[in-house]
Every structure is written in C-alpha cells, then in structure tokens.
C-alpha cells in the first residue's frame, strides 16, 4: 500500500479488503471496553487540516486517532495562517516541520491532498502520510471505505451486488470514490441522475448509467443517495427542487420498490424531503448512523496501516 491514501483507485482488492478487515478487528477490540483507548499510535502525531466545514469526517478522524492514543491536533483554515493568505504549500511544510506523522486533509480544490503529498515528501521518500479527507469534487476515499464496510456488514458480501449511486455525481467526491472502490470489490454499480449532473466522460467509469430510478429499484441490493447541494438547485442544473425530488428522491413509495434485504446509504448531511423521504431516513434499512460508527473504525484502520503498517514493512 502506498504511503498515502489519496484515491480509491490506488487500492487493490486485497488492500481494500485488508482495511475493512482491520476496521472490524478494531471494532471487536473496543467492544465492551469502559476505557476506549488502545496504545497503538502512542507517540504519533495526527493533524487534521480542514479548509471546509465538516462534522462527521473531522470528528471521526479525531476520535479514531484518540482511541489509538495518537496526539491529534485539529487545524482549521479559518483559525490558521491560511486566513492570512499563507499558501497551501507553506501551511503543509509548517505542519511537517511541527512534527506531523499524518496529515488528514479536507480542501475545496481537487488535487489538494496530492499536492500536499508531493510537497511534504522528503528527498529520501519519507515524510508524513497524507490522507485525503475530501478534495473538491475529486475523491473522499475513507467515505467509500466506510460505505463498503457498511454494505459488507449488511449484505454479507459486495461481490456481484447491484448498487445504485443516485444524484449529483458531477460534483460528488463520494460518488467518484465509491464508483471506483465498489467496482474494485466486484459490485455492479449503476449511476442514476439527471444528465446535467453526470460528468462528460463518465462512459469511461466502471459503471452503467441509467435514467429511471423506479425501473432500477426492484433489482438493487443497495442504493446510495447523494446530497443535492443548495447552490445547484435553482434552475442551473435542473428546473427545481420539487422536480428533482419527484424524479430522483427516495420517497416512501420508491423505498417500497426495493427488495427487502436492500440497504439505503447516505453520506450525510441529509436533506430530508429532498433526496430522501423523512420516514425513509429513519427506516431500519437505512444505515446512516451505522455508516458514522464504521467511519471511526475505518479511519482507525487507515491510520494504523499508514503509520504502523508502513513501518513494519520497512
């Protein structure tokens, strides 16, 4: 495995499966403990560097690090030198100099984590591990891993399962990471969205594109609803929120078209009544909170593999 986690495309099936297995081992190790503290990353410094607002991802990385006894430091752009005009590179080099073993990066520009990985690499190839916690409209690999773990737990296996990704694929880093990872893990991925929310070039992705959600639902093992961002709603990409909801929202009627075993995922934050019905969001088939729990364990596994696993292989 690479020293960084920048894209799910870099993960082989064996590596991805190993991360999911590791996440479940961490879950087991913590089960029933009063003191949720493993010594695994004692003495390691994990810095989260967030240039965008986030609740679940940042918290989940912080908890993951702390449960493994890492020193976790949270840097947010609004309260750092970035707000004074410091370049991304200078911020990254500063954090390396301050002793970061891992940099967890969330940034509105696609490729930001890639660039930080390049800039902070020492000449001998060492340097902090960089984890992409969401870069622009590119990728969000740990989200895809926690989704995969959730699907594996709910469905038993991912191989051969038919999984739909519904919504704003064009602007979604979650969609990109999931399409690649789920295909790597052997799933059939179907993408369903208005044409305006599909990127030109999607035909090269390992997915099939469908236009009717209703027609697909009865054959699905899982459906992943993407949030529709408010700034896309007013007439630019589709006529109205109402029309979107009618065409692509997972309301109660549509929910009932799914097979009984099917799982509903949403990366959050959810817009109830828009892309997901109020009652659907709370249905037992909906795994949103399980996704969050798994997020912590997956991020523990990723931090462990990048910070300890890499030392063992040296």
């Amino acid at each position: 495995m690479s020293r960084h986690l920048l894209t799910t495309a870099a993960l082989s099936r064996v590596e991805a499966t190993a991360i999911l297995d590791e996440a479940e081992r961490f879950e087991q190790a913590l089960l029933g403990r009063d003191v949720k503290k493993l010594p695994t990353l004692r003495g390691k410094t994990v810095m989260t560097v967030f240039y965008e607002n986030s609740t679940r991802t940042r918290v989940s990385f912080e908890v993951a690090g702390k449960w493994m006894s890492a020193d976790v430091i949270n840097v947010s752009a609004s309260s750092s030198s970035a707000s004074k005009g410091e370049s991304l590179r200078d911020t990254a080099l500063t954090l390396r100099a301050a002793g970061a073993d891992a940099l967890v990066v969330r940034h509105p520009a696609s490729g930001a984590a890639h660039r930080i990985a390049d800039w902070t690499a020492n000449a001998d190839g060492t340097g902090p591990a960089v984890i992409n916690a969401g870069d622009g409209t590119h990728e969000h690999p740990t989200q895809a891993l926690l989704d995969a773990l959730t699907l594996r737990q709910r469905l038993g296996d991912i191989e051969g399962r038919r999984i739909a990704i519904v919504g704003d694929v064009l602007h979604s880093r979650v969609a990109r990471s999931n399409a690649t990872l789920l295909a790597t893990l052997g799933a059939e991925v179907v993408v369903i969205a208005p044409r305006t929310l599909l990127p030109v070039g999607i035909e090269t992705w390992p997915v099939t594109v469908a236009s009717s959600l209703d027609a697909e639902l009865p054959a699905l093992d899982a459906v992943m609803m993407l949030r529709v961002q408010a700034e896309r709603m007013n007439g630019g990409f589709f006529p109205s929120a109402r029309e979107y909801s009618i065409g692509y929202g997972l309301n109660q009627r549509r929910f009932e078209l799914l097979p009984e075993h099917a799982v509903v995922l949403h990366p959050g934050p959810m817009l109830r009544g828009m892309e997901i019905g109020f009652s659907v969001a709370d249905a037992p088939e909906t795994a949103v909170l399980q996704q969050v729990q798994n997020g912590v364990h997956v991020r523990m596994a990723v931090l462990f593999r990048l910070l300890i696993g890499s030392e063992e292989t040296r």
Partner: protein
Amino acid sequence: MSVLLHRVRPYGEGEPVDVLIEDGIITRIEADVDAPSAEVVDGGGAVLLPGFVDLHTHVREPGREDTETIETGSAAAARGGYTAIFAMANTSPVADSVVVTDHVWRRGREVGLVDIHPVGAVTVGLKGAALAEMGTMHAGDAGVRLFSDDGHCVADPLLMRRALEYAAGLGVVIAQHAEEPRLTENAVAHEGPTAARLGLTGWPRSAEEAIVARDAILARDAGARVHICHASTAGTVQLLDWAKKQGIAITAEVTPHHLFLDDSRLETYDAVNRVNPPLREASDVAALREALASGVVDCVATDHAPHAEQDKCCEFSQARPGMLGLETALSVVVASMVETGLLDWRGVARVMSERPAEIVGLTDQGRPIAVGEPGTVTVVDPDTRWTVAAEELASLSANTPFDALELPAVVTTTVLRGRVTHRRTTSEVS
C-alpha cells in the same frame, strides 16, 4: 559589420554553403566565401532557416516585471531562434492606447535582440465593452497591425462584428481568443474522461468551436480578416477547413504544447500543466498536427506565458494558466512535426517564419534565404538533443512543462538584420 555563416544548409537542403551577410543583407551564398573581416559562425552543416516569427508572446512588461521583462523575454526569444515577436496586450496597464504600445515597441528597440511588435487591445481594458483606439495605435510609431484581447474572448457578438469591420477599414487583423465565457465558468481542464475522473471543472471543446464558427461567419460578412489564437481542438480544425474553403479570410495558429502534450499530464495536479485553452486529448493533438502539415492551421505561435512560482506552486484550480514557450518551441515542433515525417525543413520555415510574417504583413521577416534578402536567419543543429532545464532558461520564470525532458534540435545562432543576437556556446550544450 558582416557575419559569415560557414557551412550551413538553407532549409536543410543540398550541400553546405557559406552565407555572407553585410549591412544586414545577404550578399553572397556560395560554396566557399572568403570574408576575413566578418564574424564567423561555424555551422558545421547545420540547417539555416529564416528567423522565426511568434504571433503570440506575453512579455509581461509593463506590470509583471517580476515574471518577465522585455529584456529577458527578448533574450528568450533570441535563444529560441525568434527574430520577431508579437507582445500581447494583457499587460498592466493594458496595451489599449498608443502610449503603451509605443512604449513596448521602443523598449524592444532599446534591447535590440528581437523585433517586438506590440499587439493592441481590441477593447478598452480588455473589458469587452468598448473598442480601443485601434486607429491611433496603428498610426503610432509601433504601427500596430495585430489586435487581440487575448486572455479574454471578445465574446459580445455585436462588439466583435464592429471590431472586425473597423479593423477591415484599417487593414489590420483581429486575433481572437476563442472561448465562449459562459461555457467555461470555473473551468480549469479539458472536459473529458480525465477531468471527470480528477474532479476538475471541464472546459468543453464547444466553447472554442462555437466562437470559431461565429467569427468565421462574422469575418465573412464584414469582409474582414480574423486570426484564431491557439487552436486546440479537432473540431476547430474542421471549422477552419470549412471556412477557408468558403474563401473566408481566416487564419489560425497552434501552440507547441498543443502539438505535443495531452490532458493525461494532469494526473499529478501539477499546475505547470494548467493552460488556456487546456491540454486536450491525443486525438486533438493528432488532428492539429495534420492540420499544421496541410496548412489548415497556418502557423505555430508559442503563447509564451511566464508566471511566478507562487502562481503555479498552488492548488490546480488556483493557479494561473499558461506556460513558457519561446526557448522550446523549435525543438517541440521538430519532435512533433519533423521527426514524425509531417514537415520537412521547408515546412518548418513556413509555419515558424513565413506564414506568421505574411499574416501580419511584416515585409522584413519570413523572407527567402537569397542574395539581396534580409540577413534575418536562424541556424538549427538538427542532430544534437538537449535536456530542458527550467532554471537555465533565459526567461525570468520557470513554468515550462518540458522541464527535464530531452528534446531534439538546438538553435545555435540567431541573426537579426546581420547582427548575431544569440550564439550558443559549447558549454551550454549538455
């Protein structure tokens, strides 16, 4: 003052000859010229071409002298084999008045390494709202003959129509940066599979082609001449072919980077590869090469665009678009056009020198290599390969995508009206 080019092969043809230039004019082309007082350049059988003419250069002076000056840009041009360059108008202040265009022209003359012809802005401040004083700039010392809002498209169709009509009356050329701005909002990369995967906002081919088609039709009806800057798509090639077959007075340039690189370079997110129009797909590169060979695309122009390190060493979407071109252009053209068998050296002379000079009506550049013609020539060693080192370029900036790449052919000597403006020393040949 005289220069003797010893053992050179005009257009790479025939046996080596000696070429004597006296008082700026070629006076003898013979097997063996004896000129004891002349400065001798030993060509060693190298190719002799007319000096190159670049219709599209950003020299950044006035305004961004931290990235390039008329002095360093002139040196870069001379080292690239150029004897005339056209300095784009997007300086600060904008070259939208005779004060600025004449200043650039005079500074070029003072430096003296290359003829710098200022390009005048089409619209005041490049804002696309009102025509700039094209007639006054044309009548000034610089005699501005090419006008462009390059960096911006003259997007308003009525304003473009008026600009073409007005330019036709003056006998000057409008060079269009063909980019429909509504189709490229926030765009940073060619719209296609690579950008889709990398999550980069796409710049569709249609944004260029829609303007090329529109402007061809506007030029037809205005009886005007229009020049398309940095053609980048296969569709633009088809439109140019169509328009030329209609007899429309349209010409076009292609950059070396669009002849050589494609969007697979974006994988690293290194902003050195960010350029406008963006690097396209391999199929576009192939179409542009064919079009340059056939003459559908008239000439090569560098779009030499120096940028400061801090404007490139950042997020891809934050970086300024553009790349250096002057010192690598010939080598990239040789790699993409000569080594592939698409052009011979006559063809290189055509696309690098003769056609660009014709397009803007320069009478002292792009001339035949013959007795009585200007001693404005470039000597190219076709057999030596070199490795580009960004930091060693004459340009003040280092934003070349060709850094560390080995390329064929070296410009060994550049002569402007009988004066040697560049001579490569052996220590420079790595």
